[in-house]
C-alpha cells in the first residue's frame, strides 16, 4: 500500500461523473505523474484526492488512514500540500510573506524550512521583499511551490506547475522538483507537458475519460509504442 492512495474514485462536480473509477497512488520519495488528453479528469482526480470535491464512491488513504471525509484544510494539517494551477500566490504580499503564510498552521520554528526553500529557489531570497504579483511566471511558480513546502508536508501535489512557462523555466522547475523528491516527500503532479514530466516520473498514470488507461514507470510509458502513438505525438 502506497503512502497516499486514491482507489476506485467515482465523482464529479454534480451532473455526470468525471472520474470513472480511477486509482492513483504515490509513495514517499517518489514522483507520480498523471497525464492524459484534455478532459480526461487529471486535475479532477487530483482535487478529489485533496478533498476539493466529494467522491460518490471510492476512498483516499493517507499513511493507511482513511481520509475520504476530511476537508482540504484538515488534509493540510495532516501533511498534504496543494499547489493550484492558477492564482497560487498572494499577489499583494511579498515573497517572504507568502512563505510565512505557508507556515501559518505551524507552531514550531519555521525558519529552517524557510532557509531550505531559499536554498531550493535562490531567486526567492533575492526577491523576498518584492510583492509576488510583480514576479515573472516562473518565479511565481517557485513562490507557489515554496509556500506549499512551508507547511512541511509529506505529500506535495502540483496541478500543472509548468503551465504557461517557457521551456527553460520548465526544465528548471522539474530539476527543482527532483531536488524536492530527494528530501523524501511524496510528489504527485498533473502535467500537460507529458513527455518531460514522464521523464522524471517514478510512476506514470495515463488517464482517459476518468479511467486508468496505462500505469507504469515513467520510462516504461515513454518507451511504450502505444502510449507514444496515442498521447505523446509519435
Amino acid at each position, binding site marked *: 500500500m502506497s503512502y497516499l492512495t486514491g482507489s476506485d474514485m467515482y465523482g464529479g462536480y454534480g451532473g455526470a461523473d468525471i472520474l470513472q473509477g480511477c486509482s492513483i497512488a504515490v509513495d514517499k520519495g517518489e514522483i507520480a505523474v498523471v497525464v492524459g488528453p484534455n478532459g480526461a479528469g487529471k486535475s479532477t482526480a487530483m482535487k478529489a484526492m485533496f478533498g476539493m470535491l466529494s467522491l460518490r464512491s471510492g476512498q483516499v488513504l493517507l499513511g493507511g488512514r482513511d481520509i475520504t471525509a476530511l476537508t*482540504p*484544510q484538515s488534509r493540510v*494539517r495532516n501533511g498534504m500540500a496543494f499547489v*493550484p494551477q492558477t492564482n497560487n500566490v*498572494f499577489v*499583494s*504580499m511579498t515573497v517572504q*510573506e507568502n512563505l510565512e503564510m505557508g507556515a501559518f498552521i505551524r507552531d514550531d520554528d519555521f525558519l529552517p524550512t524557510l532557509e531550505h526553500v531559499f536554498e531550493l529557489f535562490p531567486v526567492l531570497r533575492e526577491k523576498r521583499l518584492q510583492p509576488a504579483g510583480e514576479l515573472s511566471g516562473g518565479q511565481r511558480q517557485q513562490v507557489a511551490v515554496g*509556500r506549499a513546502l512551508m507547511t512541511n508536508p509529506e505529500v506535495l501535489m502540483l496541478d500543472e506547475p509548468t503551465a504557461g512557462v517557457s521551456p527553460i523555466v520548465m526544465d528548471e522547475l522539474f530539476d527543482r522538483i527532483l531536488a524536492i523528491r530527494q528530501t523524501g516527500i511524496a510528489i504527485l503532479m498533473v502535467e500537460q507537458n507529458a513527455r518531460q514530466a514522464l521523464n522524471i516520473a517514478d510512476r506514470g498514470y495515463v488517464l482517459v475519460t476518468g479511467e486508468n488507461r496505462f500505469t507504469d514507470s515513467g520510462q516504461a510509458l515513454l518507451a511504450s509504442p502505444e502510449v507514444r502513438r496515442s498521447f505523446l505525438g509519435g
Partner: protein
Amino acid sequence: MATDVLDALVLLTNFVVVPSLAYGSQLALGALGLTLVYSVLRFANFAHGDVMAFGTMTTVLITWWFQSIGIGLGPLPTALLALPFAIVITVAAMLLTDRAVYRFYRARRSSPAIFVIASIGVMFVMNGIVRFVIGPDDQQFNDGERFIIKARTFKQMTGLHEGLAIKVSQGLTIVIAVVLVIALFWFLNRTRTGKAMRAYSDNEDLALLSGIDPERVVMVTWIITAVLTTIAGTLYGLDKSFKPFTYFHLLLPFFAAAILGGIGQPVGAIIGGYVIAFSEVAVTYAYKKFFTYLVPADWAPNGLLQLLSTDYKFAVSFIILVVVLLVRPTGIIRGKTI
C-alpha cells in the same frame, strides 16, 4: 500689507484647514472600516453609518452616567473615559450581528448583492435601536476644556486681526486618528493575524489551503471595524454633536472616500477621507473676507464668494463619487485587497 497676507492665511487655516483636518480624520477612520469589511467580507456595508451611531450612542450614555456620578477627566472630555466601554459593547453588537445575520449568508456562499441587502436590513434595525434608546434629537456630551487655543489668545499672542482657534475635540481627533492608523498598519503588516487577514482578502482559496481560518479572519475584521467606527463616531460627536440622522448621512462621504481612494485599500481610504473633507469645506466656505485682505479696498467683492451653500455639502461627495466612478473606477490606488 504683509500682515494682511498673514491675516488671510490665518483666516483660511481657522475656517478651512483645521476643520477639514479634523473632519477628514473622522472620515478616514470611517472609510477605513468600510474598506476593511469590503476587502475581507467582499460587500459594501450599508449599516456602517448606523453602527457608528450605535457606538457613539453607547459612548454618550456611558458619558452621561459618568458625569452624573462625578467621574471626569479634567480638561479632557469624559467621553474618552467612556470610549473603551462603548467599544467593548459595540464589538459585542457587531459579533452578534455577524452571528445572527452575515454568517448565515456566508455559509450559503451568497452573492455580494445579497450581503448588501442584508446590511441594509441591519442598518434599519440599528437605526431603530438608536432612535428607540436615545431618540432622534441632537445630544451634547462634550465637556472639559473647549479650546486648545482660543481665537482671542491667538490674536493677543500674534497681534493679528484674525484669530486661530483650535478646539480640544479637533486636536484629539487628529492625534487619535494618527495613532489608530499607525496601529492598524502595524497590525496588518507585522502581526501574524494581520498578515492572515491580508492573505485572506488577497486570495481566499489559497488562504484556506494555507490553513487560515476564515471565521477567525472575519471575526477580527468586525472587531477592528467596530473599534474604528466607535472612535470615529465619538470624535465626530465631540466635534459637532450627536444626532442619529447625521450619522446615517455620513455613509455617503464614507463611501465617496473609500471609492475615491480605491475600495479595499486602507491608504486609499485615508487619502480619500481627507480629499472629501477638504473639498466639502473648501467649496462651502465663503471667501469674501479672505479676498478683502488680499486685494485693494475698492476691489473688495460684494458677494459672499461662496461656491455652494453648506446645505448642499453632500453634493460635493456625490459629485466626486460620480466623477471617480466615471473617470477612474478603480480609485486612486488600484486593486481590491488590504
